[in-house]
């Protein structure tokens, strides 16, 4: 659920990076931290543990101010992918406004992807969210590795789902990370605008929302089409 406090004119939206263990969720977030240059950007909170595995979560806050003075914040979270941290995943997932599902493109990881996706479905239901209406993007990461499943095959496999087309990424090199994020922002805007009248009350259009929150440090032209 979005967290809106009218007194402070503050709206906080929550985006969760979900996916199987070692699929690159934290890498996505670290790339966003270094590539994004939005109006307001907080510290990347990485709770490091041994072996670079996420134990709790990572968090990156970014934000912008609307002409009405609206303090709009986006908190980006990752969840621990390892199976045993399910209760942490559930706690982080609760009240999410959007989800980025980071899948592993390697052929031998497809089963893990499916398991994690099933887990996402299950946990969303448990925290009272509906996977069919929640703004969500599915990213297939690690495209640079040998032995990945062909993009055509993946796109075809997901063609009948609401999350088609998939986004291909190599988060380690920053490829596709911002594209993924922009598609998510676009879908998130529809939901947030419907509830909080971003355009009508705060003069924040869809394009502004996406552009201002995904402003790129290298100023490269956005590749994703809307």
């Amino acid at each position: 659920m979005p967290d809106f406090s009218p007194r402070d004119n503050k709206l906080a939206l929550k985006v969760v990076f979900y996916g199987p263990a070692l699929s690159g969720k934290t890498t996505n977030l670290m790339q966003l931290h270094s590539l994004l240059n939005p109006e307001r950007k907080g510290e990347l909170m990485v709770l490091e543990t041994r072996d670079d595995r996420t134990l709790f979560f990572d968090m990156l806050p970014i934000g912008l101010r609307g002409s009405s003075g609206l303090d709009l914040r986006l908190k980006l979270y990752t969840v621990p992918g390892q199976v045993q941290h399910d209760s942490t995943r559930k706690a982080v997932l609760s009240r999410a406004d959007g989800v980025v599902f980071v899948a592993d493109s390697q052929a031998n990881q497809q089963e893990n992807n499916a398991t994690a996706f099933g887990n996402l479905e299950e946990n969303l239901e448990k925290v009272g969210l509906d996977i069919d209406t929640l703004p969500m993007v599915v990213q297939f990461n690690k495209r640079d590795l040998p032995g990945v499943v062909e993009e055509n095959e993946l796109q075809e496999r997901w063609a009948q789902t609401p999350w088609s087309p998939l986004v291909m990424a190599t988060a380690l090199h920053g490829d596709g990370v911002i594209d993924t994020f922009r598609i998510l922002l676009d879908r998130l805007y529809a939901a947030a605008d419907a509830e909080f009248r971003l355009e009508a009350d705060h003069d924040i259009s869809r394009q502004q929302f996406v552009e201002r929150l995904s402003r790129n440090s290298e100023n490269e032209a956005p590749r994703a089409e809307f």
Partner: protein
Amino acid sequence: MLNFEDDPTLADLLNSDQLVRLNDCLAALCTEPVTLGSTRPDTHAIPVEFNLETVAWLSGGRDDQERQAAAGLVSFLMMFIAKYRLAANLHHDTTEASYAELQRQNEALRASEARYRELSDQLQQRVDEQVGVIHKTQQALYESARLRSVGQLAAGVAHEINNPIGFISSNLRVARDYVKEMQTMLPDTSDNQELATDFTDLLNESIEGAGRIADIVSDLKTFSSIDQADYTRCNINALLTSAIHLVQTEYDHQLHIMEQPSELPDISGHPSRLSQTFFNLLDNAAQAIRSEENSRDNGRILVKTLEQDGAIQVIIQDNGCGIPEANRSRVFDAFYSSRPVGSGTGLGLTVAQDTVRAHGGRLQLHSREDTGTRVTLTLPIN
């Protein structure tokens, strides 16, 4: 409760002792003392931001530059404090959620255990009940086997007795005739007359006794189905009429029997056994109204037949002495009789019930002491 993802306030991040210590450290670094507080004390104070949120205001210091430097240091420190807080709060949340989940599972487990315990108890109870039924059935089986052997024995005995009792009866009658003839030949003294009369009485009693033995043998033969003939089509009303005649003969036509027959279809049955059954029931009724000596003339027997629900009903009802409740459960037992020894075999109702069952029907008996007895025979039409 504070959610782990809520933005922390200064008090969440540092307790008052820690805040004092931090202020001391900052004051030692700066040329003028600086103060960190959650509210803005003056216009010179500058915000300390953490994750887009102003968590504190920094005031004091020599100039803006010093305040900026101190604020930067505090922000840097805040990040690590907040990190720890986030992890600790999340850990707390998830642990609590896990514990709640465990408790739920424990509760469910407990409920399921209770259910299984109950089931197991019920199962034990059922097993006990079934064992009881098996015991009862075994007992009944044993009883019926015993009765069958008694019946076979009785049938054998009856068969063996039938011939001798035949010639004893006939010889006794011939002997009585002889005594009558001899009586005329004897010198007519009072002693002789008395002797001859006594002799005749003795023979009469013996004839009567032999007759009773013949009756018992006949009952036993019916009971043990010795002369079992094939089933034929029976007219129940006709059988009843002849049974009524037999009983009237037995009681010198003194019985008040009302007949209310309805039109009935013929049914498949064993005529002699059905006749015997009707006779036994009528005989019982006659005995019941006769034993009530004072109201002897009021005794009535009602015989009624009707067709109902694809079956024939025969009702034989009397207003006699009835059956005492204590005896009611035993009336169908073989060889049970309430009559004086020698006047009944105790097989009448037993034979009746067996016969009705063999015809796929049932026999119901309603009785109240001093009011009367009603026997209802239900025979299927087939």
